């Protein structure tokens, strides 16, 4: 943070304009220093860094404005900068940019806010993964969101241009699903709901009526007649008799609808198996993989416009803090599989030797992200280090430690009475509060514990651990 004023003096705010119209940059009516390029290559050849730059793209005079915007968003130097447009923007351009330049009151202020956020984002660290890039981008550009664009050639019928340009690994679909599962993004507005083939997740489906007996496509409607004289119901062709209608059953002449006969219902006949039926079966046939499914079996997918969630904003500011937990891996660490195996073994041992006592403690450090956010990365990391040191002092050499899901630290305490487990859990809980004393936060995380008395014989290690996890949520 201390570096910020220094940078500001070093690099002035500027606007880079892409247009083929002469004097277009001067006509924008901004007092910021601006330079105009006619093509992307001109900018790429200049060696200047673009940390405090805003772009304006003239959509009307450039031959391929969309290609240019994509190139900017993919370039490691400029992808985080503000890009405004001038002229009629299509949905894809809108999804990749910060909106029309005319709607911006004070571009200088906007560039300043954005670059300020970019400096503090990710805990001040450079972005390491595509997640970091996307979250930082969304956080530093308050007017941007993950906007879906309708595209007939996309497998799911909609695609997210921003994901497409920032993608480094995986597919956009899996990436988005991961972001949703980790609750980093949340739906802001439901744009559409599409149905996908459960076999291949393609949205290109063809709905056809088929025969309910043999699934044949070859069905046709056939009008049926109902003779009032004898009640006979049959297809109309059987009634046709030399230019008149007469009942094939009772030979009555059917002269007037409603008086001699009527049409009971529209029915269908299968050309394959001659089955007569009222309503055909509907099948959804996937045009990608060729599978046919019942319409009820299709996967419904809500297509949303996504924005950063509360958790996403936090991660954008602090960066990936997974590595900070690594300090706990130095305390009697065993891998989670081994930990579970030992725990299971201990539970089995108790079945033979009832005098055996032991305990399980779960440290859930769910407050860490907030700590980093408030104190900054450096101070936060130091705080976690000192916390880990103090935990190490409390742990006996025979205790086993493991870590699951980044922020859940497990302690298996052999040969410990229920009172002993309570005491240790109490100390750890106090430690959670003490370590953040003097800051605006109340605690680093929560402690959950269970002694062997609380574990039934029917439970195995996985069940007990799952029980504690469910209490922590």
């Amino acid at each position, binding site marked *: 943070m201390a570096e910020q004023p220094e940078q500001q003096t070093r690099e002035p705010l500027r606007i880079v304009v892409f247009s083929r119209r002469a004097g277009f940059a001067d006509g924008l009516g901004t007092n910021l220093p601006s330079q105009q390029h006619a093509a992307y290559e001109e900018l790429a050849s200049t060696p200047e860094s673009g940390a405090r730059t805003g772009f304006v793209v003239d959509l009307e005079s450039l031959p391929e404005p969309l290609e240019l915007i994509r190139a900017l968003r993919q370039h490691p130097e400029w992808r985080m900068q503000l890009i405004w447009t001038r002229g009629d923007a299509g949905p894809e351009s809108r999804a990749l940019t910060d909106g029309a330049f005319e709607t911006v009151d004070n571009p200088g202020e906007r560039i300043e806010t954005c670059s300020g956020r970019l400096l503090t984002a990710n805990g001040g660290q450079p972005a390491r993964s595509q997640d970091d890039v996307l979250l930082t981008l969304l956080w530093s550009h308050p007017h941007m969101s993950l906007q879906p664009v309708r595209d007939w050639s996309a497998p799911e019928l909609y695609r997210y241009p921003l994901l497409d340009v920032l993608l480094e690994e995986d597919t956009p679909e899996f990436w988005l699903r991961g972001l949703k599962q980790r609750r980093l993004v949340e739906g802001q507005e439901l744009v559409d709901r599409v149905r996908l083939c459960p076999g291949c997740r393609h949205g290109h489906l063809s709905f056809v009526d088929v025969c309910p007996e043999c699934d044949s496509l070859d069905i046709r409607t056939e009008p049926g007649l109902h003779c009032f004289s004898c009640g006979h119901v049959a297809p109309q062709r059987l009634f*046709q008799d030399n*230019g*008149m209608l007469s009942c094939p059953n009772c030979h009555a002449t*059917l002269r*007037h*609808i*409603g008086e001699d006969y009527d049409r009971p219902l529209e029915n269908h006949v299968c050309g394959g198996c001659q089955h007569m039926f009222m309503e055909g079966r509907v099948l959804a046939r996937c045009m990608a993989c060729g599978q046919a499914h019942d319409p009820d079996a299709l996967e419904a997918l809500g297509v949303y416009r996504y924005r950063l969630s509360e958790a996403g904003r936090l991660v954008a500011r602090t960066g990936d803090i997974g590595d900070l937990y690594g300090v706990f891996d130095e305390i009697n660490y065993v891998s989670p599989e081994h930990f579970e195996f030992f725990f299971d073994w201990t539970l089995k041992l108790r079945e033979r030797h009832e005098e055996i006592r032991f305990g399980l403690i779960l440290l859930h450090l769910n407050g860490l992200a907030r700590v980093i956010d408030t104190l900054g990365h450096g101070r936060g990391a130091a705080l976690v280090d000192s916390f880990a040191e103090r935990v190490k002092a409390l742990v006996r050499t025979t205790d086993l430690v493991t870590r699951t899901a980044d922020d859940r630290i497990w302690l298996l305490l052999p040969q410990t009475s229920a009172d002993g487990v309570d005491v240790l859990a109490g100390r750890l809980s106090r430690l959670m509060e003490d370590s953040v004393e003097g800051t605006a936060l109340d605690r680093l995380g929560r402690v959950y514990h269970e002694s062997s008395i609380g574990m039934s014989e029917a439970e195995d290690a996985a069940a007990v651990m799952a029980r504690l996890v469910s209490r922590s949520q």
Partner: protein
Amino acid sequence: MTGVLEFLAQIVEILGGLFHETNALALAYMFIPFVVFLELPLNLMIWLGVLRYYTRRIYAVPTRYPYTPRVTCIITCYSEGGGVRGTVRSMLEQVYPGQIEIIAVVDGADQNPATLSALRAMEPEVERYASRKLVVVPKTPRGGRVSSLNAGLQMARGEILLAVDADTSFDNTMVTEAAGHFRDPNVIAVAGSLRVRNWHDNLLTRFQALEYMITIHLAKVGLGEFHGINNISGAFGVFRTEMVRKIGGWTTGSAEDLDLTLRLKQYFGRYPGFRIAFEPRAMGHTDCPATWKGFLLQRLRWDGDLFYMYMRKHRAAFSVRQMGFWNVLLGLWYGMLFQMIMPVLIVLYTLWLVVMVAPVVVVATFIIIMGLYAVLTALMYITALVFISERRGRDLRLAWLIPLFPFFAMLMRVWSLVAIINEWWRHSSQESSMAPWWVLRKSKR
């Protein structure tokens, strides 16, 4: 009480002495010439015609010609509401293999939204029928039936034109039977037969059902054989579209159907081959008035219009040069003598009888005359039942009305006179409910 009994005894005595020279019989003889010279020849002609039709039909080789021109059906709708659905559906149901274009013209569409919406709601149903098409024409200002027909004529694309009422439905072979006649290029129109759809309602509708059976179903078969169709009913007429266009469509005024028939007939003098056919197997079913008031008003209109057409509007048409000899003869005999002069003669004769002769004799004469008419009716009825009827079971259920029918017919005759006088003095055809007054006042008087 004894007076009444004595009265009846005297009647029986007179009737018993029928074959002796009595006063009553002499009177009855005076009346019989009417029957012999006016009615019997007509009936004889009908019988001969029916016989000719029947023999022609049973010896005909069953042939189906590949002649299926496009047919346009103009349905004139007004305040029928959901009732029009039956008419449209019966047109959709036609087994005719050619195309049928149904033009439903709703007159005064703003006042009749129920009719319009009922028609609009039928559009998906029409989709299910191949080669059937429904065009709904909402005509916002009310202009009467003639304006609806002419609007439909403008849009018609069929070679054959059907003009039908929205309260009439049809047997599904109707178009096949009617359209077949137009194979003959000399046939310019076909009249279809009509039955009473609501015959089950009450005595009045049953009487009308019997009347339709004898005077339309049977009589027109007979007259049709001698090219003597005098009117193509407005409820159900089939025309060659080109011919209707040539004579300029329908004209303003009451009784547009009779008017059109007479104007078509005016070509018969120039084209002696032209004829109007009658097809008893082209069957329409229509609603007739179920109340005496409605019935009497309808007949007041019909008979008044007949007088108006023959005596006023188309008086000049009855010339050999215009219509040809045969049509003038039939028009004078059947149209004027039978339907206009007969009622006058019968009523005058009855009045004279009542004034001049003792009541006993009057009643006895009446019984004899009614008996004669009943016998005539029964013969006609049996002819229709045996040779023409396609629904014998239903027609048999009207048989018990035959002895009463002459009284109904007598009433009709008297009422005809009222209608003629009404038209003569009051120009009642100007008061028709078929078109608004601002249209009617422009028609020829």
